[in-house]
């Protein structure tokens, strides 16, 4: 007899499936304020435990506590709340517009609003994000015109991308928002390249790369960490762990590493894990990483622990792969409600003002939508020209594309 039995393959499974009771007992949540705030020039080896903990500022009572608290004024927090509410209202309207056939496709941020909205406020004008499709808060929090986003969602005659790009794959150099690809992970290493360029030119601007938990499995994630580590690029490498990659739970991409943040440790990149539903914590951590980058200390890896409350996109139904009530059981709560509570505790906000703001914001979104719709939606009204298909493949149209355009009748 051989001393070894036959091999078997391990395929990870989430703790629960549809019909089961939601269970997040595996998500270890430290008390708010319990994680120390190291100096930005700390040796990465000295803060290895931060890759396994969760930096939190807001406690259950709505108070901001601990070393990461105290960075934002009432006014800044109210602005943050407004941005998150705006993004949520925007999503609600656009989701409905998709159901009404005004666009082909939509992806919402429900539950993840704090991540991109708070992060943007830690950057400066001129810094560059390389986002995925679930960071529209970067635009909202930088006051990018909502109506331009809608023009693209509706692929109408004022679509900034002239109908060539998918609805939510925005671009805005002016607002530090690199054109979204739609392919996963490619932008992560590009962010490192942009940051390297800024360092090559002795500039002061920094870059931020974005990736989801699922796509950290792509080889570009590894390339990005190697290049960022080797050249000490002034880049913030963000992982938004919203627990789900379409229908695949995060354990399939994470494997045995414990956390996604821990992936940075092997590269000598300081890695932080943060409560992604805590606006104050996201902002504090982003600012820490931005300061490191600006001081030429190199990259930081940040894992935002959050939960994708909605579907991946308008093309899937989460009830087919996870319990319907799972989002209610998510232990880190709702980012809008948590910041609202904090502002009320601070005495800067009230239920009445919140209800009023909600109505005003929805009205603002509806007005923008009316304006956008007056320029057309996907199947009605003004639309981009067929000529636009052929423009912009190259700076100058080569003869073969010109011939094809003429063949198409334009």
């Amino acid at each position, binding site marked *: 007899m051989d001393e070894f039995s036959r091999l078997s393959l391990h395929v990870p499974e989430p703790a629960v499936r549809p019909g089961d009771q939601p269970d997040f007992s595996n998500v270890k949540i430290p008390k708010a304020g319990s994680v120390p705030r190291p100096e930005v020039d700390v040796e990465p080896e000295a803060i290895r435990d931060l890759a396994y903990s969760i930096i939190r500022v807001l406690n259950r009572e709505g108070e901001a506590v601990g070393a990461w608290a105290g960075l934002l004024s009432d006014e800044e927090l109210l602005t943050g709340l407004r941005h998150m509410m705006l993004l949520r209202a925007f999503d609600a309207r656009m989701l409905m517009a998709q159901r009404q056939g005004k666009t082909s496709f939509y992806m919402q941020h429900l539950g993840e609003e704090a991540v991109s909205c708070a992060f943007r406020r830690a950057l400066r004008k001129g810094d*560059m994000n*390389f986002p995925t499709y679930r960071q529209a808060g970067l635009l909202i929090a930088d006051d990018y015109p909502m109506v331009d986003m809608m023009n693209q969602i509706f692929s109408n005659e004022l679509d*900034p*991308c*002239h109908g*060539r*790009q998918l609805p939510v*794959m925005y*671009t*805005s*150099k002016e607002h530090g928002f*690199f*054109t979204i*690809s739609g*392919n996963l992970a*490619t932008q*992560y*290493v*590009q*962010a*490192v*390249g*942009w*940051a*390297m*360029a*800024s*360092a*090559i*030119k002795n500039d002061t601007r920094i*870059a931020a790369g974005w990736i989801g938990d699922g796509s950290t499995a792509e*080889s*570009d994630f*590894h*390339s*990005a960490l*190697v*290049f960022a580590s*080797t050249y000490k690029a002034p880049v913030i490498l963000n992982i938004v762990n919203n627990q789900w990659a379409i229908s695949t739970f995060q354990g399939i991409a994470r494997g045995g590493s414990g956390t996604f943040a821990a992936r940075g440790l092997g590269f000598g990149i300081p890695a932080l894990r943060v409560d992604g539903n805590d606006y104050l914590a996201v902002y504090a951590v982003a600012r820490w990483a931005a300061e490191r980058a600006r001081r030429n200390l190199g990259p930081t890896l940040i894992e935002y622990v959050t939960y994708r409350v909605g579907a991946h996109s308008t093309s899937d139904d989460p009830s087919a792969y996870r319990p319907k009530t799972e989002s209610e059981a998510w232990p880190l709560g709702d980012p809008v409600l948590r910041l609202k509570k904090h502002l009320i505790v601070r005495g800067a906000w009230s239920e009445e003002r919140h209800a009023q703001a909600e109505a005003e914001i929805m009205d603002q979104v509806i007005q923008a939508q009316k304006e956008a719709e007056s320029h057309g939606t996907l199947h009605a009204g003004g639309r981009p020209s067929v000529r636009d298909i052929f423009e*912009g*493949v*190259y*700076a100058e149209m*080569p*003869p*073969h*594309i010109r011939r094809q355009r003429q063949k198409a009748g334009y």
Partner: protein
Amino acid sequence: MARMTMIEAVRSAMDVSMGRDEDVVVFGEDVGYFGGVFRCTQGLQAKYGKTRCFDAPISESGIVGTAIGMAAYGLKPCVEIQFADYMYPAYDQLTQEAARIRYRSNGDFTCPIVVRMPTGGGIFGGQTHSQSPEALFTHVCGLKVIVPSNPYDAKGLLISAIEDPDPVMFLEPKRLYNGPFDGHHERPVTPWSKHELGDVPEGHYAIPIGKAEIRRKGSAVTVIAYGTMVHVALAAAEETGIDAEIIDLRSLLPLDLETIVQSVGKTGRCVVVHEATLTSGFGGELVALVQEHCFYQLEAPVIRVTGWDTPYPHAQEWDYFPGPARVGRALTEAMEA
């Protein structure tokens, strides 16, 4: 004027471009201190400093991916993939990203990068150092694809590529690095110093992308070739005594269709030659264009001479490489049809 090998010409193009434009940066595997495995970047780090010419990790997707990010910032990266055979990990970045950034963002962002890569066989490199993947690039709208056949063109075209506002794939036939190889592997190599196209101006000059060059005027049959095969075709014409007109495409995308149509319109016969494999190769595109535009002038079927549809073998290299004998037979066949 100086006599340069193709390696020196390519190096001179980068040197001139880096000297003229501080936004030009050069990097890749072994490219910095050592100067590249083919020595194309030798001396550039010493001259321009290690933030403008440096070694990269062995990660082609990382090299091209970071180059795309640098281009988005405003730099003009000219990166090296050590062998064209190693470009596949970067293919996603090239096809889905570099090629489409201008289009998908309506020009909000652009991607002026150059990706240099030694291509083709003839050096006993076997299946992983001999490939000619140009058709995998010409199939991608948004890329430009260049294959020079001599030092003069290599320098002028590389300068144009670096100055181009869009991503350019620059495939350097490695068998031509040191001399105009005509496929007669048994003979000693003629160095570029003994060839008129080894005469290269030391300063700046640009050759427009998208213009072919007629290397040999003739009236009997048109040969469409690029890279190493230009020299093989010249030898085949010489040896068969057939008065072939030999077109060196230089740029595959965009393509100089006018020169092709004019020539085939005149000769009525056409042979297409490339080192890459036959099926779905760039030759298929050329043949289709010739029949679309010259059908009524054609007096014979268009013939393709290419690498066989197998991986590139090692020991049987010279039975695989489309040498002058095979090209010569095709010329004869085209004349006899």
